[in-house]
């Protein structure tokens, strides 16, 4: 962002005592995000899936399709309800954990959340109408009430991710005398990191939700349930997930190149690249040694990093040493998360390719039991990749909460005793996770 005038370091907007609990605050926020984001995937992708199946029902009149759509919409409603509350926790935490951040920048990025609030409202309204309207609304009207769910699911994630994009590519304000002044909310919202983040997350939603639901029916298939109901469920969910997974590789490349341009230190952390290097090599695996400032025990592929990041094998890639040590993210966490995401993502894309080649050439599902076993594994793996991806971008942005403008330690609350809150939150989320898994198991068993 060129037009950002940071005249001097940011000072406190609120001001208070010492801020002792940064670590706990970060852990609480990370935990809450990790709980909420998988639910977001279902909010993004599941409505499109059940609406597609309902569309098949409207065209054919086949009750199997209707049964499937009813079932999925009920699961989606329960997951949506849990997402409503976990999302609420996130908004509370913005204030509870990061009051300085909100007090300084709420005026800049808040508008995106205001629009998100509207989307969320519309989603909640039509979700209720859709799920409780199966009996009394006419089939056509009922189908139509599903469309706003799909649109608002997209709009909601678009708005939230616009804020995350802004944290990575802050703009739409000036800092004068240590104060944030002259907010330009629309400029902040339409930042340059938004587009690739939105597409990356949107596709992730389809990959995660698609493979998790497909995994449930794959398990049924492996147990010998091969009726039309299971077959339809598999084909629909796999089509969504397997279409999204290979495209995700391309969007991932776009995202990485954007990070190369805008946040070179973050990219250097992805790769464990200590020094600015011409024709940099890509290292698979290994551990970054902070003392020696290099990756040890990895497999090095010459020139590949320059080729991937700049599409030129001899391009110069900025290293971690371009900024002082206190401005660098923790390399191993970021790098391990990045490699996990890329590794799993590649595997899922290959699985997607297998499905599509088989479907395209033979018009049927693959026959190998290994394919179905792989699909069962793909759901949890996609979830791991999702969380790893968010760790990559969030920890990779550290030590900044607003990239190169506000440090995370400046943003945190002065309230003490967050340890208690942290323990309470862990226990509550454990209870929540077991409750949701218990419910999903029950629903899966009912078929």
């Amino acid at each position: 962002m060129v037009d950002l005038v940071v005249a001097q370091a940011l000072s406190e907007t609120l001001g208070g005592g010492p801020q002792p609990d940064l670590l706990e605050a970060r852990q609480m926020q990370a935990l809450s995000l990790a709980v909420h984001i998988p639910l977001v995937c279902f909010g993004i992708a599941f409505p499109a899936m059940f609406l597609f199946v309902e569309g098949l029902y409207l065209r054919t009149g086949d009750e199997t399709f209707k049964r499937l759509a009813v079932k999925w919409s009920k699961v989606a409603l329960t997951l949506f309800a849990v997402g409503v509350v976990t999302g609420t926790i996130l908004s509370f935490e913005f204030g509870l954990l990061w009051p300085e951040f909100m007090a300084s920048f709420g005026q800049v990025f808040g508008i995106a959340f205001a629009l998100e609030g509207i989307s969320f409202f519309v989603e909640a309204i039509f979700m209720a109408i859709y799920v409780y309207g199966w009996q009394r609304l006419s089939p056509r009207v009922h189908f139509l009430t599903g469309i706003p769910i799909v649109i608002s699911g997209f709009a909601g994630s678009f708005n939230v991710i616009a804020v995350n994009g802004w944290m990575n590519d802050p703009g739409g304000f000036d800092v004068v005398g240590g104060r944030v002044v002259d907010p330009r909310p629309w400029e902040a919202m339409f930042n340059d990191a938004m587009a690739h983040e939105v597409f990356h997350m949107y596709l992730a939603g389809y990959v995660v939700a698609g493979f998790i639901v497909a995994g449930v029916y794959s398990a049924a298939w492996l147990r010998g349930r091969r009726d039309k109901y299971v077959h339809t469920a598999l084909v629909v969910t796999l089509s969504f997930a397997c279409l999204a997974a290979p495209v995700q590789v391309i969007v991932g490349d776009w995202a990485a190149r954007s990070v190369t341009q805008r946040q070179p230190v973050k990219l250097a952390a992805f790769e464990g690249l200590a020094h600015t290097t011409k024709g940099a090599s890509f290292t698979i695996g290994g551990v970054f040694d902070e003392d020696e400032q290099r990756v040890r025990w990895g497999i090095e592929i010459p020139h590949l990093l320059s080729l991937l990041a700049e599409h030129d094998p001899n391009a110069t890639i900025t290293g971690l040493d371009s900024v002082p040590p206190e401005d660098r993210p923790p390399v191993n966490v970021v790098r391990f998360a990045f490699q996990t995401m890329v590794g799993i993502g590649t595997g899922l894309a290959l699985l997607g390719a297998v499905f599509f080649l088989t479907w395209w050439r033979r018009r049927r599902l693959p026959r190998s039991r290994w394919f179905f076993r792989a699909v069962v594994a793909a759901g949890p793996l996609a979830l791991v990749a999702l969380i790893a991806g968010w760790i990559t971008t969030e920890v990779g942005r550290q030590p900044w909460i607003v990239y190169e403008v506000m440090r995370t330690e400046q943003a945190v609350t002065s309230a003490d005793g967050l340890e208690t809150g942290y323990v309470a939150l862990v226990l509550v989320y454990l209870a929540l996770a077991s409750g949701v898994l218990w419910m999903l198991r029950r629903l899966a068993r009912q078929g």
Partner: protein
Amino acid sequence: MLPEICLALAMVGITAYAVLGSADFGAGFWDLTAGGARRGGRVRGMVQHAMSPVWEANHVWLIFVLVVVWTAFPVAFGSIFSTLSIPLFLAALGIIFRGAAFALRGQAGTIREARVLGALFASSSVLIPFCLGAAIGGIASGRVPVGNATGDVWSSWLNPTSVLIGVLGVVTGAHLAAVFLAADSRRAGQEDLVHAFRTRALGSGVLAGALALAGLLVVRSDARALFDGLTSGAGLACVLVSGAAGVGTLVLVARGRHEPARFVAAVSVAAIVAGWAFAQRPYLLPPELTLDEAAAPDATLAAVLAGLGIGAVILVPSLWLLYRLVLRGVLDQRFEPLDQRFTTLDKDERR
């Protein structure tokens, strides 16, 4: 002018949440106090029946308030959430349990599961309005200073005004819920439940009125500025409207006119929320931060109004559609006492 309009938007959100959200919490209160599985089965069935299609949309009003406040009044937001971190964190935990347990109870397979989830749902439904009311009491009584957690972490919400508003929040919610549930029971054709909720509505209404009157004395000794605001000018007018609407609700309920009672009860709550805003004028965080000082620059406020204005074009008709479908019974599922649901489920599984 822009700050006033944005504040009015936030107050609309708070009012909607104080009516619709509170009624859902109140429904949880009646669920909690309904008695054993057998005896309380019908009341709980009606709570489930009435809340299911609307509680998520009702809950979004809270999010709406948060986003308007943190965008339009960011310094106030940061100060409120850092000083009142304990009640707000407790409310947040309550929100997780309330929503998740209610949603999961819909999928419960046995009466035991339903009872555990129901107990969680219902007890959180009491915790949340108390904590949110206590937080409002802290703001209104001038205990939230500007700053990052610079107010007292305990006395900012454990003080006479806070406790009063917290308790009043719980009781008012119970009253609203009983009024609404009586009307819902009539629509579902369950006359015994109409009677049961009418009794509850009258009892809780009288209690809420008595608490409100006694509360004025509490406020007088604990937060004199707030008391003066509520007993003069526009604040007084709102208090009187609220009281009259409260009495009106009781009369309508007693006469069995449940549909109009819904709206009059809502007016009663809306008036007291407006009265609070008038009483602490011109402050957003009394006694130091005024509305104008707290407001973000005009560019932000204009963006909020533009964004929400465009949003309202979609949102208002959507809300209208939802509540119309609900009130006409289009989204109604078959009424089923909660305990009986499991006997029928068991039969289905055996078959």
